[in-house]
């Protein structure tokens, strides 16, 4: 990957919470259109890394350059939201709002305050919401309360929000961990399709090897805040995963 094509350049990324080191001096380069899976046991720093890349939590040390601009120089709001967007489990939706407002929240970075307020009462850009939702197969849910939707449907609403935000880098924090295998695959397919649309980069944390092999091109193993491996998906072996998740050691003892 040449430097010109890279969209994320991280040098010595470090973050700790008190005495606990969440990330210890990571170097990370990700190119345009790459599909990166982040694997590792709970507490290995996956979420911290994704939140740092999303600009939601500040770095302790290190330098992060997104689209050849230091993240500190990016204006929060419009500029940052055009570059990165984040999908969490299902928690990133406001359950009390109708689906349409949760989807339109993807535009909050671009809209001014007055426009955002006005849209709360009479929704702007309904057409685009309908378009995004029908691509995800839930156009009929547009005016329902988000809390009434199933887990899989809520995840689609989160993807629709991302489609309206249209960031260059899509970050997904365990987007399918609460879904059954069939729905998990469906959501990942949609997510990677949206990313492939205009050569967007996607970085997602997940655990299922078969989904990683099917939808991603590169795998990074994270453990105790350090990269254990960073390999093309073809080189992902069961032994590597077992070692990362400590499964082999548990067998021996």
């Amino acid at each position, binding site marked *: 990957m040449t430097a010109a094509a890279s969209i994320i350049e991280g040098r010595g990324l470090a973050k700790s919470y008190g005495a606990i080191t969440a990330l210890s001096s990571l170097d990370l380069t990700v190119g345009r259109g790459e599909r990166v899976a982040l694997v590792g046991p709970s507490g290995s720093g996956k979420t911290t890394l994704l*939140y740092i890349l*999303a*600009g*939601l939590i500040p770095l302790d040390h290190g330098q992060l350059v997104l689209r050849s601009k230091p993240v500190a120089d990016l204006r*929060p*709001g*419009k500029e*940052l*939201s*055009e570059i*990165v*967007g*984040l999908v*969490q*489990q299902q*928690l*990133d*939706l*406001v*359950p*009390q*709002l109708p689906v349409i*407002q949760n989807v339109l*929240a*993807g*535009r*909050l*970075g*671009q*809209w001014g*305050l007055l426009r*955002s*307020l006005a849209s*709360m009462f009479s929704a702007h850009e309904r057409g685009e919401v309908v378009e995004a939702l029908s691509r995800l197969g839930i156009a009929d849910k547009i005016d329902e*309360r988000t809390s009434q939707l199933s887990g899989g449907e809520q995840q689609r609403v*989160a993807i629709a*929000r991302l489609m309206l*935000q249209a960031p260059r880098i899509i*970050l997904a924090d365990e987007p399918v961990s609460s879904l059954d295998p069939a729905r998990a695959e469906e959501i990942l397919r949609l997510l990677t399709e949206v990313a492939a649309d205009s050569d967007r980069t996607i970085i997602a944390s997940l655990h299922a090897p078969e989904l990683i092999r099917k939808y991603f091109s590169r795998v990074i193993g994270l453990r105790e805040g350090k990269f254990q491996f960073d390999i093309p998906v073809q080189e992902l072996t069961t032994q590597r995963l077992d070692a990362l998740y400590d499964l082999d050691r548990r067998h021996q003892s």
Partner: protein
Amino acid sequence: MIWTGVTKARGAARFLETRRLLTLVLAGALVWSLTGVDWGGGIVHTGGGNAFKEFLTALFPPELSPGFLKLAIAASWQTLVHAVAGITLALAIGLALGVVASGSLGHLGRSRLAIAVAARFLLAIMRSIHELVWAVLFVTAFGLSSLAVVLAIAIPYAGILGRIYSELLNDVPDGPLDGLRSSGASPAKVLVYGRIPLALTDMIGYSFYRFECAIRAAAIMSFVGIRGLGYEIQLSLNDLLFSEVWTLLLFLVGLVLLVDYWSTRVRRSLGS
């Protein structure tokens, strides 16, 4: 190892013994203190029983003559109007100050904390003074007018509502807020699209509860001479017309039940 275990067990047993002994001493002190009470009389007002019986029997039936009912309705209306106007003003002031006090408007920059603390301080002053005391102040300033009642209710209630709103707005889960932030939402937009919808059901529920309190407060404003249900209750009590008192009390209960019913309807439609 074994020895430390034994000492520990002994220590625990001794602690229990001490506690039982203390309980015994305190119970003894209570019994002994009862001997200090003069049981001969004066503890209960001897004529009270009869007066109370008279008051209770007056409920069957309460005063239901058309003329008095008309008066009760007019008084209820007056009380309701005072309560509605007071709570409405309190909602507006409480919401504005509550949002500022919650510190969730990030745009105020470095002075944000100072402004939030100032708002919290102002809310504390407003609610630390009872509505009747405010009423005395405002009656002195504006005379026996509705304006005095409305302000006397609005100010302390805004203090209470603002405090609760600011807490509810801060106590929402972080997940949805982070989601909005990652979409580029500023703190003000996070407030409108996240904090307020997330906290709204609780905010409305608490506001309704305060509305019920405002009706009670509006009724009791008779103590400073303002007309309404409380004023009529006081007049009837002075004349020992207990059937009339009952009618007025039933109207007061009716008002509160009406608000309660409305509150249930609204909260159900919000479908929490």
